[in-house]
């Protein structure tokens, strides 16, 4: 798809280098002048790439903007960087090419003070008026008066026949503390905008304050539903960075526990989605099953929700026969329950009428937003990191990726149900193959001092493509740790999908993303 020769011809001023993927997690690095950024983005957009992530790193001498591009057919991750002047950081906006950049650029603006030329709305997204410095800058930089004016939220103008509704931050169906401003014409939504940051817990700032080990509990609290997957992303990144080998047994146990966690997360989504549609009873049924998952995981991890089970080079402790036995029993149990769910939910006429043909997504939209997970598999793209860039024991296990056709709520529902079944198969397979041996690497250094460099590590969380980008400066503390979370790019499609919808449908769409707000807010 992307050829280096062609890129060299197109951007003669750029420094293009191939990167060993196994070590760094991406394939190609391109350093360009900031003026070339829109052209580069345009080129990749035409090639069918999506913007995986966009963030900023403060190197004191200069600010570096990092763009990650990837495509859905064969993973080829491209890192594009550009240097900015720390005194007056400005960069051209690419929000017209990749719509998701609109949100990433707002985030960078409030956290680093980078001004994006041509961006329509650089107001506060995560932060609020009380914070008068750029939090993620290494040296404290005060927010200038001019910038403060720019950051102030603009009051939306009332018009004849329309009114505004504040959905949240305290609303029963925003799954936490998301706030969505809706402009309504009666029951129809004309315009929507999410406001984030009600649960911004400064995870990225915290990472720069503590050692790699001390950061271990944090990822589980970012996405409490898929805590183990987040835990794994962090552990995997640091292991790659330090070159720690993980024993085979640990890899398999990681796979099993992650899949159990995924089932738990999908089950809760199922209940919450139905509750959004007004059916409260399935919520209790799924919790019944979910409690079984929690029991199994609690026995090995010691916690019900915010797991921190994986350690660098292995696990916290080994699984025993009882765990295997319980897991096997759970597989049997849940397989029998799908039939009940189908009878209870899938066949219900009201349910079908509520979800079919609502919230339709297509591939072009997905590319503009870089969404991932079940949300994009509903459009028919079989994109799953577990398959495309296998990690842990997924490389040995064969499994299928369910895809949808229409990209509507019904497809997203069916895919999640199917994914649970497939997760059961994966667990069964992994248990059968579970090797003996140590569960933790021996000879681990007491203090982790990874070599200088940067690295990207990706994991398929229950919600989609999760990425961790770490910059190390040879100390025990990460220089910068960036979390690319799947819910963020999934949620941002909401304004576009909600336009023209009834409020009831909008809530169904919001529910179908399976968003976890602390993950978005970080």
């Amino acid at each position, binding site marked *: 798809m992307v050829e280096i020769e062609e890129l060299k011809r197109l951007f003669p001023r750029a420094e293009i280098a191939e990167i060993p993927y196994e070590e760094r997690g991406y394939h190609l690095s391109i350093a360009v002048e900031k003026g070339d950024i829109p052209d580069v983005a345009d080129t990749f957009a035409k090639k069918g790439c999506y913007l995986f992530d966009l963030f900023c790193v403060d190197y004191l001498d200069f600010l570096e903007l990092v763009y990650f591009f990837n495509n859905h057919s064969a993973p080829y991750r491209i890192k594009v960087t550009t240097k900015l002047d720390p005194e007056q950081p400005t960069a051209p906006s690419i929000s017209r090419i990749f719509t998701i950049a609109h949100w990433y650029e707002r985030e960078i603006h409030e956290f680093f003070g980078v001004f994006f030329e041509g961006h329509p709305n650089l107001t506060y997204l995560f932060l609020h008026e009380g914070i008068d410095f750029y939090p993620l800058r290494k040296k404290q930089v005060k927010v200038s008066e001019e910038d403060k004016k720019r950051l102030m939220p603009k009051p939306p103008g009332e018009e004849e026949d329309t009114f505004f509704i504040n959905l949240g931050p305290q*609303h*029963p169906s925003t799954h936490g503390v998301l706030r969505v401003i809706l402009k309504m014409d009666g*029951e129809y939504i004309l315009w929507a905008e999410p406001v984030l940051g009600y649960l911004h817990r400064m995870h990225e700032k915290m990472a720069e304050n503590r050692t790699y080990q001390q950061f271990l509990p944090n990822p589980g609290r970012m996405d409490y539903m898929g805590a183990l997957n987040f835990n794994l992303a962090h552990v995997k990144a640091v292991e790659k960075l330090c070159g720690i080998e993980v024993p085979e047994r640990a890899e398999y146990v990681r796979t099993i526990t992650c899949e159990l966690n995924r089932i738990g997360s999908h089950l809760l989504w199922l209940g919450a989605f139905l*509750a959004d549609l007004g059916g409260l009873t399935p919520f209790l049924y799924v919790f019944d099953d979910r409690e079984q998952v929690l029991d199994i995981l609690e026995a090995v991890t010691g916690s019900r929700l915010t797991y921190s089970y994986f350690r660098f080079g292995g696990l916290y402790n080994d699984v025993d026969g009882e765990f295997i036995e319980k897991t096997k029993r759970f597989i049997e149990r849940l397989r029998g329950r799908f039939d009940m769910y189908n009878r209870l939910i899938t066949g219900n006429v*009201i*349910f079908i*009428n*509520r979800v079919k043909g609502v919230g339709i997504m297509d591939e072009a939209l997905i590319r503009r937003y870089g969404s991932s997970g079940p949300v994009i598999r509903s459009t028919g793209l079989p994109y799953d990191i577990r398959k495309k860039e296998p990690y842990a024991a997924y490389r040995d296990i064969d499994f299928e990726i369910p895809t949808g056709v229409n990209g509507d709520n019904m497809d997203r529902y069916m895919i999640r149900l199917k994914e649970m079944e497939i997760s059961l198969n994966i667990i069964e397979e992994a248990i059968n193959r579970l090797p003996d041996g140590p569960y933790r690497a021996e000879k681990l250094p007491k203090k982790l001092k990874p070599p200088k460099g940067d690295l990207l590590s990706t994991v398929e969380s229950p919600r989609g493509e999760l990425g961790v980008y770490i910059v190390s400066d040879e100390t025990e503390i990460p220089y910068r740790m960036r979390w690319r979370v799947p819910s963020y790019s999934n949620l941002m499609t909401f304004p576009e999908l909600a336009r023209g919808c009834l409020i009831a449908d909008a809530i169904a769409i919001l529910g179908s993303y399976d968003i976890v707000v602390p993950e978005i807010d970080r």
Partner: protein
Amino acid sequence: MTDVLKIAVEAIGQDTLRVILGLIGVLILVVINALMLTWAERKVAGHMQRRIAAKEVGPFGLIQPIADSLKLLGKELITPMKVDRVLYFLAPVICFIPVLVSFVVIPFGEGLQVRDINVGILVILAFSSLSVLSIFIAGWGSNNKYSLIGAARSVAQNIAYEVPLLLSLLIVVIMVGSLSLKDIVEAQKGMWFILYQPIAFLIYFIAGVAETNRTPFDLPEAESELVAGFHTEYSGMRFAIFFLAEYTNIMIISAVATTFFLGGYLGPYLPGIVWFLIKTYFLVFVILWFRWTFPRVRFDQLLNFSWKILIPVSFINLIVTGGILKL
């Protein structure tokens, strides 16, 4: 003692006394019914959701609703700053009166009727339409956007479902040739009307569930969409009155269904009132059952269902029935 009573009865007039006693009885029934139904709803919900629900307060948690209502009595009555005071206070009152009046004409058993009015069903229908007004007033007066949307939904919904409800009852009225509820019950001595008119019963019941704003038609108070709909801003006792009215409405809808289609108080062996209550509470249970099984319909689907399906079907049903009766 008996002399005093006799004099008193003569002074007030037997009929008036009957109405007064009846109203007191109805009031007690309404309160007990609502308390029992909140308990029943929690228990039904609990058991459908594989849990036991209220059990700590009193035997089987039976004291729970009383404890809850005492708590609600003791709560502070907040009047939010920006509400329209007159409407805000008026809404719960308007909500409660019609449900009381409706009970006056319902025959609970043979002779157990506060007043047999020859236009009985008209009284019920006329007064039950009033509850829409109260919901609208509550929504408008609260000065809250969620309440307002809930109120607007409620009005649209009630207008849409009033029509099929009336049409399906009209069929029975045509068959009996009387508007008096007592006559209608007596006409079912041989056979319940549900067997003659299953479609009318079905339409009536669906429309009735919609009239009471219960799931799957609970759009005016759709919790996941509108927080609490029209009563978002109501607290304490005022909120309790809305709750009371909602449960009493369920009871009325079921009682009317029993009277019109299930033979009212008629039944072998047991006294009439027992049969009446068994039938009514069975229908109430079905309504509760709906709530804990179905998801909510969407607003446009709700209206389409009424205007495009229920109303044409009930018209056809009416014409066919009329034709057959004429032959």
